[in-house]
Structure formats: C-alpha cells, structure tokens
C-alpha cells in the first residue's frame, strides 16, 4: 500500500463511487466517506424554487421536500430508467454532488472508479461514463459486487451476494475479472420487499393511511426473517388519528418473499462452478448491500445451504460503504499507466 500511496501523491484524488439504486456513496483517498440517498429533485416551478431555495436537491432533503419537487430516482430496477434525459441528468447531478462531498482541492486531479449495478453495466455503461466524465479526469466503471469483492480481498473462490434496492447481484470470483457467466442478477431485492410489504399492509389495514416512503422506513427499521422475540408496532394514522399497528407478520412475510429466488440462484451458481472448488466457495459467501442488514438472513442462508455441505456466510461490516471502499481500493491499486485521460 505504501508504494501505492506514494504514487497517489502527485496531487491526485482517488475516489471510489458506489452508484446504487437506493443509496450512493463515495470514498476518497483523503479519507472522506459520504453517502446520499439516490434521489434528485428539481423544483417544479418558480414558487417551489422560492420555497426550497436551491436549483437541485439530493437525498433526504429532496425526499423531505418532494411535494414541491420533480423527484427522480434514476436507477430504478438497476438500470437508468425511462424518462431518459431526466434520468441521465439525475445521474450526472448525483455524481457531481458526491464528488463535491469528497471535497477535492481545486487543482487536484480526480481519478474515479465507479461501481454500478450489474444490469446497468450492460446497457448503460456508456451513459454512466458520460455522466461521470465531466467531473473526473480519468475513470473506470466496474460492477458493484466485483468492487465489494475486491475491497474485501476476496479475489479467489468466493461468492459475493449484493442485495441492493433494485437488484440482487451475485458474483463469483475465481482469481480473474468475473465474466458474464460469473455474474447473475435477480430482480427481487429491497424495492420488491417494499412493494410486498405495502400490499400486505393495505390488505390488512385498508383504512389506515400510509405511503411507500413510510413502508420503506418500516422495512429499514424492522426487517427480519425467521423468528424474533420482540413485537413490531408502528404508528399509522387512521382518519387522521395516530393508531398503533402490529406489522410483525407482514414484515416477516415481505422479507421472506425474496428468499426462494435467492437460495435457488445461489445454489445454482455454486453448482455450476468447478466441483473441486465448490467447497471453498461455500466457505466464502459474503452478503453485501442494504439487504445484508435483514436480521436472520445470514443464518437462514447458511441453514438453507447446509444440505449441500458445510458452508460459511458472512456479512460485510459496513454495507453502505463496502462498495465504494472497494472501488477506492481498486482505484488506488490501479497502475498509473492504466489511467487514461478522458
């Protein structure tokens, strides 16, 4: 690392960016770590511009003022979604904002590695490149699970499961850059849990008023699979009056709705791998992304895979920054000759 840092001293700021569906984070070589929710909002009209006082808002702030904003979540379902110019613009704004948050010195060159959902990489890679290129001097785009794996030094015989909001990306590492066959994307992830939870709750409490945003907050606070002892009760207004609701069963059902596809894909990917190395991979499964915070998920997966032999599933320590930290490490390790000016 020493020699790498020396290389980075030539007034270059290395940044690793994790461009996610729900949250985006940045890690920079000047030790800043920042994240925002991947929402971009533009004031709807002149009046809202007066109210919010800014031409563009991000993350939590944008969500808070969403009634007066044109809100955009550019990477829904893991790809730049329709709406196009607006979404591309939003990606650009997010990148710009993140790089500003990293506080580069004015004369510093920015070398960026951007991790994006695997599906985005397929069809939108050029768009992503364009969006970033205005704000960086040189950049590379990689898939998110790969960035996580690289950051954790899991270069050989490991399986990274990145449960994000739009997609769950699985990536097998076997000592080389993962090819298309080594990566798989399933569309059941955080947003899917939100949808399920929302429909279960509307079904059970038809008179209570809640919205997608509240449901997401419930999920982030209480999500679990298997069993927990505590009760889950939340306050939801009924006819304007706050009433306590028991949502434990609904949260459990919603969170467990992603499990079948997850287990199936995991076993399928392991089974396809060279049999001599399957045991090694099973002992090296890593859960990343916001979904790794679901309580009991690690144990569940370990249990479900038990019948295929002993296995070991771990969670990343810091799901929010594991992607951007990995991307940063990738940026710092990259030999200088590979960085081409844009």
């Amino acid at each position, binding site marked *: *690392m020493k020699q790498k840092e020396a290389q980075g001293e030539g007034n270059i700021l290395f940044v690793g960016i994790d461009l996610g569906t729900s949250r985006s984070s940045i890690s920079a070589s000047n030790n800043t770590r920042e994240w925002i929710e991947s929402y971009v909002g533009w004031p709807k009209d002149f009046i809202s511009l007066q109210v919010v006082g800014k031409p563009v808002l991000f993350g939590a702030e944008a969500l808070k003022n969403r009634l007066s904003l044109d809100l955009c979540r550019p990477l829904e379902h893991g*790809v*730049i979604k*329709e709406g*196009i*110019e607006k*979404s*591309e613009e939003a990606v650009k704004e997010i990148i710009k904002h993140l790089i500003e948050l990293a506080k580069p010195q004015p004369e510093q060159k920015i070398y960026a590695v951007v991790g994006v959902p695997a599906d985005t990489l*397929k*069809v*939108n*890679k*050029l*768009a992503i*490149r*364009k969006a970033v290129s205005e704000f960086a001097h040189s950049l*590379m*785009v*990689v898939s998110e699970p790969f960035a996580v794996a*690289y*950051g954790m*030094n899991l*270069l*050989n015989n490991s399986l990274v499961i990145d449960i994000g909001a739009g997609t769950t990306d699985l990536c097998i590492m076997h*000592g*080389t*850059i993962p090819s298309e066959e080594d990566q798989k*994307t399933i*569309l059941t992830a955080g947003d899917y849990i939100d949808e399920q939870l929302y429909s279960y709750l509307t079904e059970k409490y038809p008179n209570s008023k809640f919205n997608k945003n509240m449901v997401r907050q419930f999920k982030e606070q209480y999500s679990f699979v298997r069993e927990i002892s505590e009760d889950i009760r939340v306050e939801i207004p009924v006819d304007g009056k706050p009433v306590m609701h028991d949502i434990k069963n609904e949260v459990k059902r919603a969170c467990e709705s992603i499990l079948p596809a997850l287990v199936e894909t995991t076993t399928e990917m392991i089974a396809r791998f060279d049999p001599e190395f399957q045991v090694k991979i099973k002992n090296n499964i890593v859960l990343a992304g916001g979904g790794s915070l679901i309580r009991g998920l690690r144990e569940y997966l370990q249990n479900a895979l038990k019948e295929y032999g002993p296995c070991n599933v771990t969670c990343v320590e810091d799901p929010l920054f594991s992607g951007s*930290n990995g991307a940063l*490490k*990738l940026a710092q*390790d*990259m*030999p200088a000759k*590979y960085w081409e000016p844009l």
Partner: protein
Amino acid sequence: MLFMIPKKRELKVRKAILRGVYEDNLRIIGKNPVILAGRAPVFFKKMFLFFSITLLSILVNGNYLKLPLFPEKQTTASLITQRPSSLPAEKPVKPSDYAAFLGGKEMPLSRMFGLEVKTIMIDPGHGGSDSGTTGTMGTKEKDITLDIAKKLRERLRKYGRYNILITREQDTTLPLNQRVELARSSRADLFISIHLNYLPSKPINIIETYYFGPSADDKTLRLAEQENAGSHYGLSDFKEIIGKIGETLKLQESKEFAASIQKNLFLNSKKQNANVYNFGVKRAPFIVLLGVDVPAVLAEVSCLSNREEEIELNTESHRENIARYLEAGILDYLNKGEVSYEAKRSSGRR
C-alpha cells in the same frame, strides 16, 4: 481498512484483475485492447452455409415434401415428432406435433384483419447464452433488443387498450419454438420481433423489416440462418412449416404491418441520422415469423457493425427513439393510415 501483507501469488492475481478491468473499460469506450475475443467461430459459418444451401434447394424446387434431402437427418428429425397427434390430418401430410400446433385452428378473420387487436407480443431477439451479434465495443444485440422491447412495451401500455406481452423479461435463453408457442398460447394478435443487423463488410447503417416468405436473396437467407439458429425445430418440421406459406391472408397482413413498421422506422431514423439506408420490406423464411399465426414481422432496427450507430445504441435516448418509431409503426398499422407516420411527440431532443 485492514490489509494483510499480500503474498506473491495474490499480487499476481490482483495484477491480472486490474488489467482485466482496464481492458474492459477500454472496450466500453471503443478502443480495442491488444487482445481481442475471436470472431464468430468457423463452426457457425459452416452451419450458415449448410442451412442456406438446404433452404435454397428447398425453395427453388418448390416441392418441399418429396425432396430426398439428407436422409439421415430426416430420420432423426422425424424421431422427435413421432409422438401421436390427436388431430386428424386432412391433407396427406405426415402427422406431427408441429402440424397440430401450426395448422390446428383457423384464425378468425376479424383478428387477422387487425379489427380487434388486443394482445401484442413483443419479442426481443436472442438472449441468455445466445448473444446475437456483438459490436466492436462489446455491445450485445440481446441487451439492446431487450431494452428496446421493454421501452416499447411501456409506450404501448400507456394506451390502455392493448395487452402487451413480451417473450422474455430478462437475459434468458429462449429457443425460437418456445417464442412461437408463447405467442400462440397467449393468443397474441400481433407479433413483432426486434433484432439488430450486422454487416461485416460494409460500415453503413441500414434498416429493414421482414415478413415471412420465400426469398431468393442469398444475403437474406444467410441472415435468416443466423436468426433461425437455435430454433429447436427438426428438419421435417421445418419442411411443414415452409408448407404453410399458402396462408396468404396472414401474409398480406404481415406485409402491410412490415411496411408500416419500416416506413416509420426509416423516415424517423433518417431525421436523426442522414446516413441511414432504407433496405425496405423483405420476405425471408424466419421461423419465428412463420410459426406465429397472426401478422408477424421481424424488424432489424439498427446496425451494430456501424461504429457510430453502436455508440448511439448505448445511449438511452436513441433506444427510446427506436421504441417510439416502432410504437408509431404499430399504431399506424392498427389504424390503417389514420395516424400519420410522424412519430408522436417527436421532439427535437436527442
């Protein structure tokens, strides 16, 4: 972050990975790294040649059933289809599964005339292990077609009048016969398959639309070969399929549909890019078009061998534009010319 002191072997691995990332990114921007994946294997070329000769001889002779073509192939193919068929064959045609599935029910005329089009099936070409063609920057046909198909679906859904179906939702391998079966079982009234062209010899960008029919054009046959690969139909089934050309009503409708798609696609694309060539509406024996009993076309919406076009195809707006033109073409056909060919909301933005 904590780092263990890396072993020598690990350093080597890491170096290789970093190089891989670098090469991958070079490919994105179109600069070819020194090492490049090989072109289409010779095996495929041989397959093309074999099939195009077969097809040509079948079509030129016109007598499809009695040709003693490749007898050993025939036995294997008929073995697949020896399962008993419950439907009585009216004509002296060998009973087979596909005969039942292709010639079983007659299509109601109203549907064939597009009077009551409710269900439109969109078929993004290729998928999964079959990537279709690949551009120099590594753009894969299967990804682009899927994205355009999804965009087209969203656009058509907005009308609320149609039930829009898609043959594949994700990057999955789907043989042609399953696509055909899907269109039939879901009672689709209109079928459009989206593909990208690839002209290795010429760097031009062309647009063309196909409907089913015999073609004497060598190039077209080769293309048909390319798109028919992986159909999972046996040779004997294929002969019967060709025998269905007689269904002229569907043919006429398909032709009209193809003309409408081609007109909209070309005229609108021309506005964006003056260097587009109109290769017009063509007939070709694409299996995916024949198996479907309703008006069906295959649109080659763009050309991946053209570099500028490949870059364009990587932008969201261009794919959205293509979806918009296809939408206009479909509506144009459904309204029989009531709507002008100008794509709706055709904005100057790009």
